[in-house]
């Protein structure tokens, strides 16, 4: 507690210079003295004022113009806002409405936070909206680069987002609004601010805006640069993904690289087409490594830049250079009027599967014979209706988004989701659907009766040391996704104290990007960051934990631990999708008390080896690529052969 008080005092002191500057601009010595006096009585407000002052979200001119009494109060508008205005529901900025914020998020009001500083510190990143006109959740979902950069969405929108044509909510399009109203365009004002301040009151055409079609994306001028070119192969799989699979720091990247490796071993020539999200562009080193692995790599950025190296297919991409992308929205019937949710999803579909990647895939398609188009994640389905039956269209789902509400959102973790109908509409575009585990296969099969669904999980090479070390060490290795962070924090809160009580010398090793989420010194915890020597890491621990409660798809952490011959303590959700025999090898718990007790039991026991030879055999078999990808390999081969034999009718597609 002392530590926390000290920190608060320190934070307030650090904020003092910024606030003193504000106080000094209070207009008079009296005003300045009043300001300082008021802040001395409410030190918490000092820090809040500093946060707001730095954010640029306080518009002093706007505030004074809107509330003329502030000018007469003899204190700086920011001071007035922080001390009084916020709690009188006065707006510090046209797009931030304290009344809306406090009513919609009563926990903020209960905690006594000044709403704008809360929004800047926490709310924006948690998807809380600052007012009725700006939808943070939508903005973060539609702009993953903003989420990754850790920038407040509203600040990003005001500084960069709207000039770049990004939409503040599903129902408002800056470009359309500017185009529609000449005065807005001429004023150069942020269209959303204009609407919030003027347009809304004047009843400008917002209702029709929500119901009109989403405008077609701007036509992109493509520039393509060959990185190398070789001959065409016979059996081709074109893998379309937004994930750069190397280096495989995240589970999905690992899974993609393992699957493609296996397909290549099965005789497929792999053409990897990456459409990285803004801010996730692969490094040149990564591209080189992927070229080394698969020979054919194409990187298509959302601004139309295409870089590629093709060894096994003809270079048709050079012809893209200088072309403009066609109006795919017309072909895809996307120019129909769309309501909020539909518009939101359309934005997401276009974010992941943008026109540049469609143009690239179609150009490849034009020179390929029968081939397999493997779309990673359902978000890549947008291109599928444009392809004719030369392509065996496969969606490798990774996740079932229709189960997110039950498996992720219920645990308070924000994530993308689809309704069953929305997911079905996208999956129906594929000839084959790949589930990542058997439970999800059943769900997908129920969603798509009659459509082939196969399971392809993730393989691991069993390379662990059977003997357990004597030191009572626990390992959590994970990426920094919100579910992993949440699971780790709850483990530290609920279970780790219990472990330490039972095993005082226990040590928890935290490795991987999730380490970044742990900033404080915690008793018995060692934060390792990214670790290259995973073999050594696993060898040194007696038990691995997978405390991630929320999540769909396959539990790679669980399988990896087993393949490293380390016992794993996890939730029943952490063992979901595993075969029963593998599940039986996990310590599955029902609550955090039990979690701690089981971890402690694993640490205290005098067990020398976690698994018997028979169990090790079982793990090796269950996680081998031969087992994991057998069904998918055979199905793809069969479908490709059928397609080659012309069994499939020509359906769908658009000519180049």
């Amino acid at each position, binding site marked *: 507690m002392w530590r926390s008080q000290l920190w608060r005092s320190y934070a307030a002191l650090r904020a003092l210079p910024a606030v003193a500057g504000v106080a000094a601009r209070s207009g008079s010595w009296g005003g300045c003295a009043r300001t300082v006096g008021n802040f001395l009585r409410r030190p918490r407000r000092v820090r809040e004022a500093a946060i707001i002052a730095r954010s640029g979200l306080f518009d002093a001119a706007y505030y004074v113009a809107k509330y003329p009494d502030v000018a007469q109060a003899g204190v700086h508008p920011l001071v007035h806002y922080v001390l009084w205005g916020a709690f009188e529901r006065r707006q510090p900025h046209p797009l931030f409405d304290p009344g809306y914020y406090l009513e919609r998020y009563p926990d903020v009001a209960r905690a006594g936070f000044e709403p704008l500083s809360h929004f800047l510190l926490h709310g924006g990143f948690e998807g809380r909206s600052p007012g009725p006109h700006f939808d943070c959740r939508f903005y973060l979902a539609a702009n993953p680069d903003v989420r990754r950069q850790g920038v407040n969405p509203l600040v990003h929108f005001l500084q960069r987002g709207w000039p770049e044509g990004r939409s503040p909510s599903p129902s408002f399009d800056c470009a359309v609004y500017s185009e529609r109203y000449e005065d807005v365009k001429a004023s150069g004002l942020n269209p959303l601010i204009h609407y919030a301040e003027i347009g809304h009151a004047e009843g400008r055409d917002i209702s029709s805006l929500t119901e009109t079609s989403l405008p077609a994306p701007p036509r992109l001028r493509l520039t393509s640069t060959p990185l190398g070119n070789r001959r065409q192969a016979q059996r081709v799989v074109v893998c379309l993904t937004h994930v750069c699979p190397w280096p495989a720091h995240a589970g999905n990247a690992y899974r993609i690289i393992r699957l493609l490796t296996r397909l290549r071993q099965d005789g497929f020539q792999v053409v990897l087409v990456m459409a990285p999200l803004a801010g996730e562009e692969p490094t040149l080193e990564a591209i080189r490594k992927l070229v080394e692995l698969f020979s054919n790599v194409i990187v298509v950025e959302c601004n139309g830049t295409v870089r590629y190296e093709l060894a096994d297919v003809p270079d048709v991409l050079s012809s893209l250079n200088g072309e403009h992308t066609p109006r795919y929205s017309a072909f895809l019937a996307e120019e129909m009027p769309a309501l909020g949710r539909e518009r939101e999803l359309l934005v997401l579909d276009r974010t992941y599967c943008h026109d540049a990647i469609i143009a690239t895939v179609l150009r490849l398609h034009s020179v390929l014979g029968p081939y397999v188009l493997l779309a990673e994640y359902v978000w890549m389905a947008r291109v599928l209706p444009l392809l004719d039956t030369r392509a065996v269209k496969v969606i490798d789902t990774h996740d079932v988004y229709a189960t997110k509400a*039950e498996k992720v*959102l*219920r*645990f*308070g973790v924000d994530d993308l989701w689809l309704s069953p109908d929305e997911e079905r509409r996208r999956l129906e575009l594929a000839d084959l659907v790949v589930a990542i585990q058997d439970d999800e296969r059943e769900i997908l099969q129920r969603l798509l009766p009659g459509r082939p669904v196969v399971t392809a999980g993730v393989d691991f090479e069993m390379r662990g040391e059977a003997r357990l070390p004597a030191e009572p060490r626990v390992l959590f290795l994970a990426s920094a996704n919100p579910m992993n962070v949440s699971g780790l924090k*709850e483990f530290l809160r*609920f279970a780790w*104290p*219990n472990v330490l009580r039972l095993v005082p010398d226990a040590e928890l090793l935290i490795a991987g990007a999730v380490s970044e989420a742990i900033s404080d010194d915690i008793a018995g915890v060692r934060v390792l960051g990214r670790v290259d020597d995973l073999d050594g890491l696993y060898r040194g621990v007696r038990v691995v934990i997978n405390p991630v*409660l929320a999540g769909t798809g396959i539990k790679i952490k669980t399988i990896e631990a087993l393949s490293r011959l380390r016992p794993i303590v996890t*939730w*029943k959700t952490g063992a979901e999708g595993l075969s029963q025999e593998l599940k039986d090898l996990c310590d599955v718990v*029902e*609550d*955090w*008390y*039990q979690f701690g*007790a089981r971890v402690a039991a694993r640490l205290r026991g005098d067990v020398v080896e976690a698994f018997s030879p028979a169990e090790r055999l079982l793990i090796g078999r269950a996680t081998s690529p031969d087992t994991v990808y057998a069904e998918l390999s055979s199905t793809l081969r069969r479908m490709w052969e059928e397609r080659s034999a012309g069994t499939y009718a020509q359906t769908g597609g658009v000519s180049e």
Partner: protein
Amino acid sequence: MSGLADAPLHAFVDLTADRAPEQAATHGVMGWPHRDHFTAAACRVTCVADPGSTELVSAAARALDWSLIPTDAPVRACNAAMMRAAADQAWFLLLSGPVDASEEALFAMRRCLERDPLFGCAAARIRCADGCCFRRPSRSGQSAGYWIPRRTLAETEDVEVSPELFEASLLFPPHLVAEFGPLDSRFSSIAGAILHYLSKARRCGYRTVIANRALMGISGASCRERGRTPVPDTDQTLLKQLTPDLSRGWEQFRGASNERFEVLSGHAHRTAAVGRPSVLLDIRNVMAVHNGTSRAVLGCVGALHRLSPSWDVTVLAHPAALQFHDVRKMCRGWELTTTPPASPFGVALRLSQPWHIREMVDLHRAALANVYFMLDTISWDVIYPSPQWLDGTWSFLAEHADGFLFDSAFTEKRFLARFPRASDTPRAVCYYPFHPADYVDQRAKRGTDYILVVGNELDHKDAARTLNLLAAAFPFQRFVSLGPPLGELSNLRAHRAGSLSEEDMNQLYAGARYVVFPSFYEGFGFPIVTALAYGKTLIARRSELLDEIAGRCSTGRVIEFARREDLVDIIGRLLHGELIQEERAQPPKPAGLRRWHDVARDIAGFVDSAAAQSSRSRWRMRERAIDQLLAFGS
């Protein structure tokens, strides 16, 4: 004033308003012996009577050597008599009706006036023909006076300075008889004209006094009959026009206050005599929701009704609550009201804490003895949800209540520690029932499906933080909460506190595997007793109150915790069948568990005792304090 003793006395007897002047003349005036009554001292007596009165009145007047003026306009005659008295420097005695004005009473009136040169008029107290009651003078002549049992007179001061009033016997000193005259001839009644005259005198500083030791009889006056209003309606209108400060004087300068005292005290004497006290049950704090307060208060009301003490009961309740809780059905045969009643009561019993001084003023004005049932002191301690100026309200309560009941020794200690002035006030701890039969609904389906967390949205209940903790720590365990509405927690079904009927609440307890009651602060803790009555394992925060209450229950199992985070460990061990060290040692099972009947009996005993011991001086102190508060409030 010494010269006054020698001044002559003029008297004016108004028989015009009397319905049967002949009878009055026969039994009243004619019965006055010459020597022992004022007629012996009066050198001049003027009598006015209706022109239609019979010869008998004339004969009486002649026999007494009075001037008889037959008239239906007595004001003019009275004015003339006053002028004559003024001219003769004489005392002026105004009698309305056949008043038996003895020398002794006159002497007492003169003594009152001689006390202060600015006492301008003295009124005598009028007794009924039976002598059992005396009359409280009418409020500015605008209503009939009240008949008060004679014992109350002993509780009054000798002299009572009063706003203007009109009574059947008024005495004016010589120097003031016509100083503010003449009487306004627009008044049709002497009462109206005299009140106007007295108000003019008062505006110059001369006050009316009531001579409480000057008792006079009036022929034919019966305390069983309601008297008549001395000032007729037409005169009242004129009076209000001419003296707009008349009612203010009555309200704010002790008129109403003294009247209230005599009415309440008189009522107490009257009901004590018949052994049937009247009780006002104030349950205005019960709102149209189900909560601990409604359970406690309505439990007491129901139990008292079943006990049927020998009281006349009126229930004062919030209108919405009357309907919501079907109080009418519960209190069949009792009076119900939604506004503070005007009629007097022996005891007012507030079945919960007062929240505003206004509520206490209501009870003070309704009853001589005020008793309060204190349920807890939470609001005072936590401050934020408390009504404005609660500290002042309860300080006043501590100083001026006539009795306190507390629902636990814990609450009593808290209250006395915060308001030590209450230590001298009679008080008792009156627990609510502990017997399972008073809590368990046999129709409720038993089960062990979920963990019930009980609280509400107030911080001291700690429900929201506990629920967030437990729902996160036991993600696959079902929780049901009675408390604050929480966000999206998949393993929690939240019921808003106050929204469930008693039947639904019982079902919640009956179906729970464990009951968690994380509250930091309670007065009694119904959830404790309810959970234990259902034989459940109760996990509650360690406290003195838990020891006090749980120790009186006979069933169930109590596990204590000290810190919220400990719940993870405790519930974890419970769920997995491990040993629990925090289990509270079960005390020996108490014999004869308390039931609602016992609660009602204890309350009734305390109220009867308060009624018997009600202190007039305490009431007067309270009245003065309220006047002071009202003075500030204005």
